[in-house]
Structures are given as C-alpha cells and as structure tokens.
C-alpha cells in the first residue's frame, strides 16, 4: 500500500539510505559533480559552493573479507566497510573522494580508495588539527580549508566566490536547523515521529543533495506539525557513541519485549553531523567555516583539552541528557575503535552519577541482534526495577 503524508517522506528517506549508490548515480545522470567524503570534518560547504554534491561514504553491512588484504584486521568494521565500497566499485561514478586527517581507521579506508580503487588522481586528504582545543587549531583550519578551496577550484576549473560560499553556508545551516527541529520533536510528550525515523532522515541528509533534502525536511516538518502525535510509551533511551549507519540498531530499541523509545542519538552519523552552525554574513567565509567546524560537538578522536585532559563532548552529552530526559543511556561504538570506548570509561561514571543506567553495545559489520536485544532488555529491566 502506498504511504501518505509524513510516512511517504520518511519512506523516501529510508529508500535513499538503503540505496545510496543508486540514488547518487541518478544525480550523476542529471549531470551533477559528486564528491564522496569520509569524515564529517570535511567542510561540505566548499564543495557545494563549487556546484559539487557532497555525499558521505556509508557502509552496506556486508562481510568484507576482501578488505583484510588492505586494512589491518583490528581496524573498525566501519572503515573496512567504507573501503569495501571503493573496492567494489559501488561509487565509481564519483568525481572525487575526500577525507580529513581525523581518525586513522578512516584514513586507511581513504588510502584504499586512493591506491587501489582508481581514485589516485581524484582524491584529497585535508589536514585537520589533531587536537582542536588549542589556539593554533583555528589558524591551522583556516589555512587547510583555504587550500581545500583552491584544490576544488582547480578541479572544477571555476572560481568559488565568497557569494557562492555564503549561499552554501546558508543552505547547510538551514539543513542543520531542520534536522535539529526534527530531533527536538522527540522532546514532546506526544511526538509525531519516532527516534528511528528521525535517525533515518538524518542519515539520508548526509548523502543527499542538500537543496533536495531541505525541501523534503520542510515538507516533513510541516506535515508532522499538523499531526497529533503519539504518547511515548515505556522508557526513553538515548544513544551516544561512534559512527552507526545501521538503522536496524535504532529500530531494535523500539521493538524489544518492553516498551522503549529512542529519543536522541549523539554520534557522528547523527547529532555530531549537524548540531552546530557556521556563522553567516562574515567577511572572511573560510574563517567563518573554520569557526563553525571548530565549535562542533567534538569527535572523541580530537577532543582533549591540553593540560586538563577535559573532554568537551561530555558537556554536550550532559546537556542532551538534561534536554531529552532519557531513562537510560546506550553507549554504542565500533569494535576496535579506540577513542569512543576510551571515552566511555570516563563518561560512564558521569552518567552513573546522574543515576541513569546504561549499557554498551559493540558494533561490527553485522549487528548481533540477539545479544543486543538481551542487553537492551536487561537495561530496560534495570530502569524499571524488575524483581521476582
């Protein structure tokens, strides 16, 4: 049966996340230039300003034994799976692959594309400061973003004007505000949308033409605002952690033996992707971009305040807990990722102090549904305080 209203838009977002290579190929057929990016530190606005559609390389959750010859086994499955996309030729239609020097695992996935997947001549590794909470980091980023702008200009053989950049900044900020509004609907007692649905739209936005995505999000929000919503049942859970583009994990949260609702996801495939803005109307557009990106919720790989060792991301997580009022926290991270689980060691006691129960889920290529289900149900039982 054909879906109507908001369901039809959500279904389309879901289709795009499940068929990203096909969707992006359709953009190519329309004559668009496409750039794949592997990390959310890449300032998409620069690509967009040059008329390129940036799309995030995401995974297909298939076994990728073939990548073990290229990337060490103890690199995360997300990086393996992203490398696999290149080796399989799923994105042969891209004009460029770009990443920032963020995490070594994704750096290796990028290297596989550049060395072995035919992208040697159409790849760009953007330098990014190792620790962002330092004074020189801003200047470093301005220089690095400026170099990237020059590279893109050479690639497209066109000058990226400040006007182009300002327009791109506005389109991207609009997208961020729309996604934020969508997530904030889940603060309501009767949200008209579910957490997994918002996660789906958020993921789709990372691979879509932003203009098209914004139009869909506007329509979706307009329709949702007119819908009565449904009271959330059971316990409220938030997820915090690393990259997760397997929407099955979020669906699972809402299909346990107990009633549970996903109310927020703090990860680089969700809130960390869009929960910031780039200042608009600045004279120096590149400096504005650097300022915006440095103010993002930090990636655990970059997030250590020199001297104190403070993790600024934790402040955001605490704020999200205050705002979205979860009963439980799910720490979700990729197996073999170092920064994410190391953060959990320090973040869990903070969550414990708030009196919020938590559990850790370790992602791999495929989701171990039975085990995740058991852990999540045990978490809900703890929240509900079940006793014999």
């Amino acid at each position, binding site marked *: 049966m054909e879906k109507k209203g908001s369901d039809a838009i959500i279904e389309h977002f879901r289709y795009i996340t499940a068929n990203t290579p096909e969707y992006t190929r359709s953009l190519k057929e329309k004559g668009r230039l496409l750039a794949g990016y592997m990390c959310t530190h890449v300032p998409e606005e620069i690509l967009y300003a040059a008329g390129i559609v940036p799309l995030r390389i995401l995974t297909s959750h298939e076994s990728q034994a073939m990548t073990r010859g290229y990337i060490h086994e103890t690199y995360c499955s997300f990086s393996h799976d992203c490398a696999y996309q290149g080796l399989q030729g799923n994105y042969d239609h891209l004009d460029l692959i770009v990443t920032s020097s963020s995490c070594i695992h994704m750096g290796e996935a990028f290297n596989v594309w550049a060395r072995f997947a035919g992208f040697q001549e159409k790849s760009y590794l953007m330098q990014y400061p190792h620790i962002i909470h330092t004074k020189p980091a801003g200047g470093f980023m301005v220089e690095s973003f400026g170099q990237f702008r020059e590279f893109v200009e050479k690639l497209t053989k066109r000058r990226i004007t400040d006007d182009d950049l300002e327009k791109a900044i506005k389109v991207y900020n609009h997208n961020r505000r729309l996604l934020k509004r969508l997530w904030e609907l889940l603060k309501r007692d009767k949200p008209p949308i579910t957490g997994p649905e918002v996660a789906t739209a958020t993921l789709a936005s990372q691979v879509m033409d932003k203009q098209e995505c914004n139009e869909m999000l506007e329509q979706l929000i307009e329709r949702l605002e007119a819908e009565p919503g449904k009271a959330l049942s059971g316990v409220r859970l938030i997820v915090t952690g690393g990259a997760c583009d397997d929407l099955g994990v979020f669906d699972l949260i809402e299909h346990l033996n107990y009633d549970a609702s996903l109310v927020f996801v703090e990860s680089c495939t969700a809130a960390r992707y869009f929960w910031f803005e780039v200042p608009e109307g600045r004279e120096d557009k590149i400096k504005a971009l650097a300022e915006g990106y440095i103010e993002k919720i930090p990636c655990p790989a970059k997030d250590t305040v020199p001297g104190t060792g403070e993790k600024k991301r934790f402040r955001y997580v605490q704020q999200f807990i205050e705002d979205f009022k979860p009963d439980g926290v799910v720490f979700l991270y990729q197996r073999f990722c170092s920064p994410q689980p190391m953060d959990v060691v320090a973040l869990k006691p903070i969550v414990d102090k708030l009196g919020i129960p938590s559990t850790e889920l370790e992602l791999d290529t495929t989701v171990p549904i039975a085990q995740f289900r058991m852990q999540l149900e045990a978490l809900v039982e703890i929240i509900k305080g079940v006793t*014999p």
Partner: protein
Amino acid sequence: MSGHASISEKLDWTKARVIAAGVDIGAVTSKALILLDGEPYASSQVVTRTPKESAVDAVNEVLKKTGGLKLENIHSVVATGRGSAQAAFAQRTVSEIACAAAGAVRIWGPSVRTVLDAGGQSCRVIHCTEKGRATSFLWNDKCAAGIGRSMEAFGDLVKKDLTEMASIALESDKFPKLSDFCAVYAQSEALDLARSKVPLEELIAGYHYAMARRISTLVDRAGVKKDLVIIGGLAKNTGIMNWVESILKVSRLAPKSEWDPALTTALGAALYADGFCKRQHD
C-alpha cells in the same frame, strides 16, 4: 539429546499450590528448573542443539524425572538466555541479567552485590541489591577469550576434557605467558610452544591463566562490590576462577555444594515465574 536431571525427593508436586519453571536456553547448554511453592524441586541440563529444540529438551528431561508432572500442570514458565525467544511454551521472557542476579541472591543470600556470570558464549558482571534486583551490568566484548566456548576449543586441541584441564592447571606453578587478547592467538601461541617441547601441563596452566586475566579485566572494569559470587558453567573451573580471585585480590563466596552454578540463571527465571504467578493470584 545429551543431558541429565535431578530431583528433590522431599517435595511432592501433586501437593504444590504454585508450580513455576525457569528455562535458561544458553549457547552451550540449556537448563530447566522447577519450583514448588518457591522451593527448588527438579532441574535438568542438556546440550544445546537449536534453541527451540533445546528448550523443549530441557523441559522434557526435567519432567521425565517427576513422575507424572506435565507441562500443562506448570502454572508459569519464564524463559531466559540467548534462545529465550524460541521457547514458545514460556509465558514470559526475562533477561539473563535479571535472572542471574535473582538466582544468585537466592542461593548465596542477601549479601551478594556482584555476580560474575561466566557462561558458554558470554561473560558478564552484574551488580545487584540484597533483593536480587540487577542494578547494572557489563558484558564481555565481542571475543571468545574468557568464555566457555574457548575452553572447549582448547580442550579439543589438547585432547582433554574441561574438568581434567582444570585439575592440571591447578597443579602447575610454572607456565608460559599466553595472549589474553584473543582466544585464537592464545591457542596458536600454545601450539607453537608445544612444538618447542613446552610440557602440556604448563601450556594448559598458561592458557587458563590467560583466560583468567581476560575475565579479571572485565570484572575490574565493572568494579567488585562485596560479596562476589561466580556462576555459569565456567564457575566450576577452579583452574580459572582461583586465578580470577588471586588477580582481583578478592575472594568469592564459596560455591554451594548443593547447587550447580550453571543452574543459577534458570533458578532466577523460575523465581520470576513464581513471582508472576503469585502476583496473578493475589
């Protein structure tokens, strides 16, 4: 079907007001336990085939011992464990975290605060209240090191059963250091050492020590609140668990001779079944 069952001859199911059962469908073995008015009556353990078959096998095995008790006579059944969703005859499922805590407090008493559940496919540390309510847990990461399956695999490699290996491990003071990061690496290192004529006893002890270190890391991360008890199939392996105590510098409450620690979670499930039934009657 390979398994065994036991029964308390002191109790008579025909006189029981509430008959409750717990079924723990684990990765290696499946267990069933029946309570008569809250008192343990009969239990069984079978080797897991498919979860669906094993759930039925475990219940059939225990019913065979009872002299006429049938599944339909049981007022409430709670399933737990990896295959719990496959136990079609159970009215409810409860996680093994909640069941393990409830079972451990029932066996060892209200002083229990930490339960190390060392099972066939996973290893978990659970904190609980004096009433057996789980308050937090930590699950092992995605690796076979420190779980029952890896011990079985090592046993196959050195052609010894688990009990024999545990005795050998206890006797050897001297042993090589093996990887505690990965069960496969540890086994491969052990094989290399065997080729270098390192005595088998030392290899077995080394492997047990490596697995104990792995388990201890998990317990250490979760934190030990006294009293500690160890349950699950691996609890019976003193070769590992003595080292776990020594590495963590903490003593567990002594195993109860009348209880097989592998049955603790099934007992917890039965307690939940009993509780559900009583609440329904009230």
